[in-house]
């Protein structure tokens, strides 16, 4: 017997839910002992990642480990099944959680934030729901965890408790819950009613059950119901959520929450609709153009933002649209590119947010215009920023190259030359708005008497962002295994 994996995948799946859930309780109970609490948090994150890894071998060998928890109504069950896309999402989220929890300790202590126990506990609950989303076997299970994710991140957005935070959190909640109940749930019920199933099935479940006209309507309901994908005009929650402390913006609003959104988009497009069916729908083209518009206009908005986090938020809106675009192209390569972008963008964007947080902790600066010359004082932070920015832009030797590469290939192969153009144009825009802060930080002289006394942020802030920046580079080499694994979605 090989020493790896240590346990059966079917045992590991429920454990990936139990560990963060129990972790949240443990964190909440140990609020009086900050060191113990924070130590526990890192341990739990590491344990979760190790458990997720246990499932990997089974998936790599083409298996689909599955379990059913409970059956609510006949045919409507809470069930889990791991396929490549979910596997990758879970790996990304759980590995980055370890790094983020280290960073969060440094950030929260460095910035003297209050209510740290509630903060860390909610964080664990959010990870719990991300695992549920990643491994869900059917749309119903996914929906439940999708809602838990919204609810558990609300206290994190409202964390500061001031008027601005409350308003931001309210926008966050109303948009995310409103779209999910008003559109997504309608689509789910209708799917169940028409197709008689909600299971994620290779090739989709719609064909033969739902007419194309109705299917097109359902697609619209799904894509707009998945508010977390931040497709315009339902993207407002994402900039609003930036009132949260930076670790939240980093892990949740660059990785877990938004990626849960586009992950769901990919899941729905490949496993509920199926690419062959999707291609025939009238609204797929429409949504593709909306995604393209969203992609470009969010980039343009990002150019205007002086607040670094706001700029990054609009950049995220734009990057998410790449993935939605990839899903709507209904082409294998584009879908693979979109899936890869989940990974690549996650590492790049989390680095950028970490940097924004480190700058805030070290200097209390939030605006780009105040960051002149800061690179000389914080070389590691700004160096990592540069690498993260390059990764998001998609320059070699960064992993971000591969996702855009596949997206462009997919667009070209399906004859959408306009979309190729859009991706190219947006890359130029990316360069303009992402590199500017780095340029100012390194090349502009510091303003008189301002930057004196600014030093690198605490070690727990700087080390994580260096790790993720190096991760962006490492991913450049990981393209082939990733592609091979994602090919499994389409059965090759």
């Amino acid at each position, binding site marked *: 017997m090989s020493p790896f994996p240590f346990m059966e995948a079917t045992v590991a799946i429920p454990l990936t839910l139990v560990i963060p859930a129990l972790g949240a309780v443990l964190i909440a109970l140990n609020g009086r002992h900050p060191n113990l609490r924070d130590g526990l948090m890192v341990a739990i994150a590491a344990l979760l990642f190790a458990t997720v890894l246990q499932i990997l071998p089974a998936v790599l060998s083409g298996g689909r480990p599955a379990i059913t928890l409970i059956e*609510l*109504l006949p045919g409507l069950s809470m069930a889990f099944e791991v396929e490549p896309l979910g596997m990758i999402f879970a790996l990304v989220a759980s590995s980055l959680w370890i790094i983020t929890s280290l960073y969060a300790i440094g950030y929260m202590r460095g910035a003297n934030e209050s209510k740290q126990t509630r903060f860390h506990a909610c964080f664990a609950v959010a990870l719990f729901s991300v695992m549920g989303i990643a491994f869900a076997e059917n749309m119903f299970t996914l929906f439940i965890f999708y809602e838990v994710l919204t609810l558990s991140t609300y206290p994190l957005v*409202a964390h500061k408790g001031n008027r601005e935070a409350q308003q931001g959190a309210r926008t966050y909640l109303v948009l995310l819950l409103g779209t999910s109940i*008003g559109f997504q*749930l*309608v689509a789910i019920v*209708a799917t169940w009613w028409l197709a008689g199933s909600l299971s994620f099935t290779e090739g989709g479940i719609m064909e033969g059950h739902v007419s194309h006209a109705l299917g097109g309507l359902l697609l619209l309901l799904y894509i707009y119901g998945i508010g977390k994908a931040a497709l315009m005009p339902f993207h407002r929650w994402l900039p609003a959520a930036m009132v949260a402390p930076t670790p939240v913006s980093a892990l949740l609003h660059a990785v877990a929450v938004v990626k849960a959104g586009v992950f769901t988009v990919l899941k729905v497009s490949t496993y509920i609709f199926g690419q062959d069916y999707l291609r025939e729908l009238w609204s797929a083209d429409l949504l593709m153009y909306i995604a393209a518009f969203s992609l470009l206009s969010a980039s343009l908005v990002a150019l205007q933002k002086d607040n670094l986090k706001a700029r990054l938020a609009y950049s995220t809106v734009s990057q998410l649209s790449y993935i939605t675009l990839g899903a709507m192209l209904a082409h294998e390569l584009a879908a693979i590119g979109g899936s890869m972008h989940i990974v690549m963008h996650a590492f790049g964007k989390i680095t950028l947010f970490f940097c924004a947080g480190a700058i805030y902790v070290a200097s209390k600066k939030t605006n780009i215009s105040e960051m002149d010359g800061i690179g000389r004082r914080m070389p590691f932070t700004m160096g990592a920023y540069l690498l993260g920015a390059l990764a998001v832009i998609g320059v070699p030797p960064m992993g971000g190259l591969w996702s855009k590469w596949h997206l462009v290939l997919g667009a070209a192969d399906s004859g959408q030359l306009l979309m190729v153009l859009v991706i190219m144009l947006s890359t130029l825009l990316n360069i303009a708005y992402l590199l500017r802060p780095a340029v100012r930080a390194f090349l502009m002289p510091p303003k008189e008497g301002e930057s004196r006394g600014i030093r690198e942020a605490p070690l727990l802030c700087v080390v994580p962002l260096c790790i993720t920046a190096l991760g962006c580079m490492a991913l450049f080499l990981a393209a082939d295994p990733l592609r091979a694994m994602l090919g499994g979605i389409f059965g090759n």
Partner: protein
Amino acid sequence: MGLVQLHLPAFQVIVPMLAAPLVMLMARSPRAAWATATLTSWLTLAISLLLLIRVRAEGVVAYHMGGWLPPVGIEYRVDSVNILVLLVICFISAVVMPFARLSVASEVREDKHGYFYAAFLLANCGLLGIAITGDAFNIFVFFEIAALASYSLIATGRERQAVMASYQYLMMGTIGTTFLLIGIGFLYIMTGTLNLLDLAERLPAVNDTRTVRAALAFIVVGISLKLALFPLHLWLPNAYAYAPSMVTVFLSATATKVAIYVLMRFIFGVFGHELSFNVLEMNLLLMPLAMLGILIPSIVAIFHTNIKRMLAYSSVAQVGYIILGISFASTLGLMASLLHLFNHAITKAALFMALGCIAYRLGGVSLIHMTGAGQRMPWTMTAFVIAGLSLIGVPLTAGFVTKWHLILAALDGGLWPIAVFVLGTSVLALLYIWRVVEVAFFRAPLRRIRVREAPLSLLLPTWFLTLSCLYFGIETSLPVGLAERAAEALMGDYR
């Protein structure tokens, strides 16, 4: 035991009725009065469970009062429909009584406790009687018993407005039962019988007469007043807001539900699907009213700062959902309505109980009182949130099971916009529940006064119902099975 089994239907009503004067005699010792009333409520729950077993075995349990055969005597008839209603009433009153001791002690003058519990038992007896009887006139009589008892229960509220609220309810309620009586009188004139089964048999022959149609109109409007169908709901918010907490819990969970049952019984069981929906097309009346009744009170609820009143408006909206299910005139729709009868009863009772805990500790149920309550009374507020989620209809709670069936019923009837409407209005519920959550959990308490968590005897019943909301949201077979059988029985041949 054989004798008890035989007379179960009679005991269901008689036990609380006879216990009521007994409790009143104990007026000097509130504690004894409470203990007796509690035991009685548990006994009635046991009886209803025994009845459930018999109904499952025999299908229909018919009981002839005093041995007189139906057209002459009064028949008690328990079938798969009203056993559900009986269970809801008994379950809620059995849970609310342990809650009542402290809550009533803090909200009702001590010299009135004996009368209070006696009135509670009479209200209980009246509601059970409405549900169990198979005789139209008997329904009216029990309606009056239940109503008079609830008027006095509401009037015991602490604030002076309670009397006015009770008076308002009395006016509207009396008009309602009078309409009901007129309708029943018309039916008697036309058919010469008061037994519901006989009525159903003889009515088709005289269906075309104006008298029968007038009877239908009188009965539907009369009952609609009692069940607070929009726009006849004006008595309800005041009555619920000013009544003592325990009374609000009980009435919100049972009183309107029983009236809804009677409406179903008359529409489907007596007048029949053919006359109600195919000839008179009552769905065209009920559906818009139900939808308005969901929409407007939900919006009104969002702007109320007295949370008890806010939940009262929410109750009107929830009645709307139930009526919406009825208006589909299909088995699935009825099933959704019957499910909501049960699910909303436990959900709203849990919410009002949590409010009772808050009133007990904080002395008020306005939004201001609840500022920062999440820190001071975490258990109470958590219960409120969970029950609130069930009210919204979040998956894994009881409320979701209803919404799911209601939406399926709408789709089944080809009514896409209504399915969307049902989900869209859930967002309104989200808005008014979330206001409370925001204030209770995300604001620091205003005053420095130390407030402790509610006492255990209030907290346990609250959590019992809250966990029921979760339990019946996950293990759905019991309510769904009951509702399915009941819906099929009501629809009869029209499946």
